[in-house]
């Protein structure tokens, strides 16, 4: 049973390398650079985990969290960011993010968290 993970980041390098890392751990990974597309996929397909960047255009990671909440979907979301202010961290937590990770991501820590969340 392969767990489905959605990676949302408008930075292709980051998105692709992260997706590759997760696929090597036998997860079924979908990539997207757009929050709107991500929301559509989450509604339509359902994912075991969403890993989303915070700073994206035009909609960002927090918007994604808000939209997931609006559609009454339950899905754990990890927010990652290149520069996390404490305000953003607490806002993300308030919107239901399960974790808040700073880039660059330490692979062992990330994979450990992922395993915990999708188990």
């Amino acid at each position, binding site marked *: 049973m392969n767990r489905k993970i959605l990676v949302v980041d408008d930075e292709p390098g980051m998105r692709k390398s992260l997706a590759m*890392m997760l696929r090597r751990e036998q997860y079924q990974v979908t990539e997207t650079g757009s929050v709107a597309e991500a929301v559509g996929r989450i509604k339509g397909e359902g994912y075991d985990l969403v890993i989303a960047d915070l700073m994206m255009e035009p909609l960002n990671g927090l918007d994604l969290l808000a939209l997931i909440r609006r559609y009454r979907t339950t899905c754990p979301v990890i927010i990652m960011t290149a520069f996390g202010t404490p305000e953003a961290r607490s806002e993300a937590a308030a919107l239901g993010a399960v974790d808040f990770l700073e880039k660059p991501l330490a692979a062992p820590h990330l994979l450990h968290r992922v395993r915990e969340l999708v188990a």
Partner: protein
Amino acid sequence: MLRRLRAWYHNASLRVKFALQVVLSTVLVVSLMLPAVLYIQRRAILSAVEESGFRIADIFARSSVQAVLADDYLVMQHVVNGLASEKKVRYAMLLKEDGEVLVHTRAIERGRRYTDPISSVAATTRGPRVQQLVDGEGIRVYDFTVPVYVLDEKRASARVGLSIEHELREIARTRNSILGFGLAVLALGLVWATYQARWLMRPVQALVAGTEEIARGNLDHRIPVRARDEMGQLAQAFNHMTKSIQALIETSREISSVLDLDVVLKSITEHALKLVGADMAFIAPLERDGGDARVRVVIGGRKSSYDVVVKPGVGMGGWVLANGEPLITDNYVADPRIVHDPIYDKTLSDEGVVSALALPITLKGETIGLLWVANRTAKAFSAEDGDALGRMAHQAAIAMENARLYQDLRQSHNELVNAQAELVWKTRMAAMGEIAAAVAHEVRNPLGALSNCIQLLRGNPAITGEDAELLTIMQNESKRLNEIISDFLAFGRPRAPRFTPVDLHELIDETWALLQRDDRCPATIAFARRFDRALTPVAADRDQMRQVFWNLFLNAVRAMRDEGTLGVETRHTDGGVEILVRDTGPGIPEAVLPRVFEPFVTTKSGGTGLGLAIVRRIIEEHGGRITVRASNGAGTCFVLSLVVDTGTV
């Protein structure tokens, strides 16, 4: 000529003028006295001659009456011959009305008729008459004529000539004696006047010399006071004035060159003491909020300082503050003007004060302080002392005000400079924060991707040997890149500390453990810790404190290069805790030492210079302090002081 003489006199020295006056006075006296004396003497001598002349002529006239009546020539001749035997008688004769000689001591003259004016007057006179003439032998003669009456009818004139040569010589001799005496007096007077002038002028010259000395700037010069006369008083007044000026100048020179209020006050008090020769003095400037004056400097006291506040109306100083006038007392304890206060009285009796002088220091009519001098003996202060101190107090007021203004100015200047520096700093930090955030975001995304890729590649068992080593280098370098970004973020975008109770010992051990796993920390570095077990947890931001220890430890380890000891000591202090972080490295150069906590100051190549700046800011935000002690070759020691605020733990 007269003008030149006047000009000469005008410019002549006082000595010359005095001598000249004395000489002129003597000449005047002598020249007035001489003719009077001569006249009186001449009159006395000549009137004696006249008296005897008239007596002889009268006797001659009476003796001749019978003979003239009888026209007896022989009797007449006999009488005349009798007269001629008198020593002084130059001649004797009887003249008829028409000038015919009836008889003459020289018989040959008989029958001649005299028509010369003197003889005519003698022949025709109706009463006694004296005339002066010079006879044929050049002898000066008084000619006495007495008419000879027979029964109211004039019949002849009896005429006798008496030599006055002897008398005139007597008169001349007297005149010469008097003149000689006058000249002698004049000469003596001149000598005396010169001497006296010199004697009189000596103090004046001393005064002149003194003035010149003072004009040259030698204010230490004093004029010797020899007598109690006007000159002595003048010299005394002059000395007093010089002393006063000296004190004034010294005070003003000393205090106006200084802008430090404390130094100014001390200087004023010292000069006040010296100026009036008092045993003790104090100065009490008015407090800024007005009303009371606080004693700031005491000179000559048995205690070096007094914490005394002078309130208007109470005590001697209080009287002066209330009245705005000086107060002199020769008996402090018994003076009815002073409202006594037990504390003041105790202080002054401890000091043994008897007489005192207090005066207000005023500026533009406003009292700004109080100056007080006192003696432990009954030696009272004079009104002159008060005046002298008053003048000094005026100078003092200006200096005090200047110092006060300067103090205010310096304070506001410092505030302004600090505010400006802070503003510049804040602006710079805000700009840096913006840049750091932007850069961090832009750099960390590619860095994150890079890091992911490296980690993926490291999972590939086919990459071995040098390639694997290259991957490790890449991983370490990207980690370092990330740390640089993190430093910038931590410094440019600091966050407020979140206080929780933190066990510092646990945190120190944890940080050291973390550092040991870092490949920048060689295994040869030893860790020596000495913990004060009595230490309780402190209120701190755990993450930020970890950063502090991390930065300090990493700096220490890097400074020591391959070997050395990182020493960490904790200890309890009064109301806080101290953490000492030592290394045994080469130390920080002294030139850099005062600036190590400034951002971008680094002794390493490749450091951002932000590590210690971040440490300082975190410590300061925790209400603590960090200092550094170092000396080249003996390592560096950072001392962190944190306040233990039990309320927040």
